[in-house]
């Protein structure tokens, strides 16, 4: 089942299925953001693990391709994943 990244609980892993432009909230969109996510390694088929989120709907910390990324909430909402376990 496809879920936005923000639906994952701390410690859960998933495989990126797609990155949707212009869904979710207005903030966090912007120019070239999809390309940016790809460049940072969030290509379809990539495995990632959610470590935690900052409070007050803050950014999500994920482990991907051996490194640690902070993704703004608005952006994380547009990344869709399939939960692995």
């Amino acid at each position, binding site marked *: 089942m496809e879920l936005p990244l923000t639906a994952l609980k701390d410690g859960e892993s998933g495989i990126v299925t797609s990155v949707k432009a212009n869904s979710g909230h207005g903030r966090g969109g912007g120019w070239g953001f999809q390309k*940016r996510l790809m460049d940072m390694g969030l290509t379809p088929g990539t495995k990632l693990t959610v470590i935690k989120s*900052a409070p007050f709907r*803050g950014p999500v910390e994920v482990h991907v391709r051996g*490194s640690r990324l902070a993704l703004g909430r608005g952006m994380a909402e547009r990344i869709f994943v399939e939960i692995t376990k």
Partner: protein
Amino acid sequence: MTETKLTIALAGNANVGKSVIFNQLTGLHQHIGNWPGKTVEKAEGTLHFKGYTIDIIDLPGIYSLSTFSIEELVSREYIAVERPDLVINIVDASILERNLFFTLQLMELGTPMVMALNQIDMAEKKGIRMDHEKLEKILGIPVVPTVAIKGRGVYELLERSVEIIEKGGINPPIIKYGEEVEERIREITKLIEKIPFRYPARWAAIKILEGDEQVEKEIREISPEILSTAGKLAKEIERIHGHSCSTVITSERYEAAGKIAREVQQIVPRIRPPMSETLHTITTHKILGYPIMVLVVLSIFQSIFIFGNYTSEFLSNLLYGWEPLFEGLLGTGIVKDLVWGGIAEGVIAGVTIALPYIAPFYLILYILEDSGYLSRTAFLMDTLMHKIGLHGKAFIPLMLGYGCNVPACLGCRIMETERERLLAAFVTTLIPCAARTVIILGLVGTFVGVQWALALYIIDLLIIFLLGRLAFKALPGEPTALIMEMHDYRIPHLRTVGKQAWFRLEEFIKISFPLIIVGSLLIKLIEILNLLGPIADILSPVTVSWLGLPPITGITLIFGILRKELTLIMLSVLLNKPLPILDQAMEPVPQMVVFTLVTMLYIPCVATIAALVKEFGWKKALFITIFEVVFAILIGGIALRILSFIKIP
């Protein structure tokens, strides 16, 4: 004897130890400037090695060679068009996969390359073992393991680089994509090879398939047919893979990077997480993270203030001690007044700010940045920054602003787009810097009460928030979200950090000193020509009628443009009352409160204006300045009326 000149560029992701290697290579022979016409820093250095004079160019730390940021554009243009003799790709061995993604893109540009496999010690601590010989074989370029902070491998890196250049530069082999992509790349490459184009043909072909706007634009000007063919081919790839062509190419590149990484590294799981991991967990903790951040920030300011006050006093006593010397040389006439009161005092003013406050501020800031802590604060503050249309990284210049607005304005470069840089800089100029804090505490804090001083800070934060939000709504364009790597905590390399702080200090001096000196000379002239009274009169409709202040405050507000804390000293001089009994000439409420409020908001000081001009040009700098003057006067007048209305004793 003339030595052969060589140029070597350093390229790599952010935080891989690139600047440390740059420092190890070039030592003291460095020059930091800007790329022509860009607000991107260009660090250059020279060294002599085996009969060569080698120019080292330190390119900005980036993750890709797309058009996402100006840094990426500058880097790829430099490598592809200026063609250095060699590129040293610096790679963080502990995050090999992400770094190789960039390496593969560099290889596509076709310049001769050597790889520095850096921080192998950190990788080992994380349980990652590296077979660098195998990596060398797979990539077809020399790979030198290094531990830059200890200087390990740096000599060999240089040796192998020169060796490659002497051999006439081995071009890196081509990394192949899947056949259905590769076939189409070849087709477009052939077309581009027929036209005169400044970028390498294969690289340009890949970029067009990725939908790179800049390359597309340049090709369109020469041959629009190529673009339509490429568009058709990209559609075909999209049909085969079910994703956009750009996604397919990026995925395949990452796939290749991942495959190589897995082949050359062996991961030994660690039983206990390393210290840096524990530190990360605590400092980004949902609850603990915030008090830790407040504590860190407060203790930094506290220690800078203590150090700064002490050193500043010491320095000004020392420097003012030279006045008799000037008197002896120039007499007591107008010449001495101008030279001493204008120029020398301007220099003293600058020195007593730059050394005691700004230098330690920069040093601590770079230590925090290099260690990795700043990216954690950006993580924690992202939500709040979004309210004013910025993301977490903007918290860094904002915090800088509390020390001095000049470095803060320059620090806004870390934001990705021009719009965000401007927005962040605007907000930053409203942050009460150290000088403004001196006034708030010295006037309101002393004569009215500490809780009033605190209230002013809170009012200022509210104003910043409101104006930031307004500017965010008013400026066209969409905000970008935070995408930030949080690299592992590490111990900063002191020499590199020290040098970065030093270059910043130099930059500050270059920007602010000329203006401070010219400004104080001008004011001295006004004083000598006896124009103080007339100017105070001209300003009195604003100062007296609207703000309810003593007429002479008009003069102090003008002095404040030079250095905000001068307003306090001038106030006591012009009102002819020593600081401790200033309240005999000015009512604490409302006059002092109104005066402080206006001083806090009314103008970025002359050095900050210069920084704004440097970053955004005259027009925008002027606009911000005028806006803040008008706004401060408006708020001051409103505050006076509210304060008189509620009549607080």
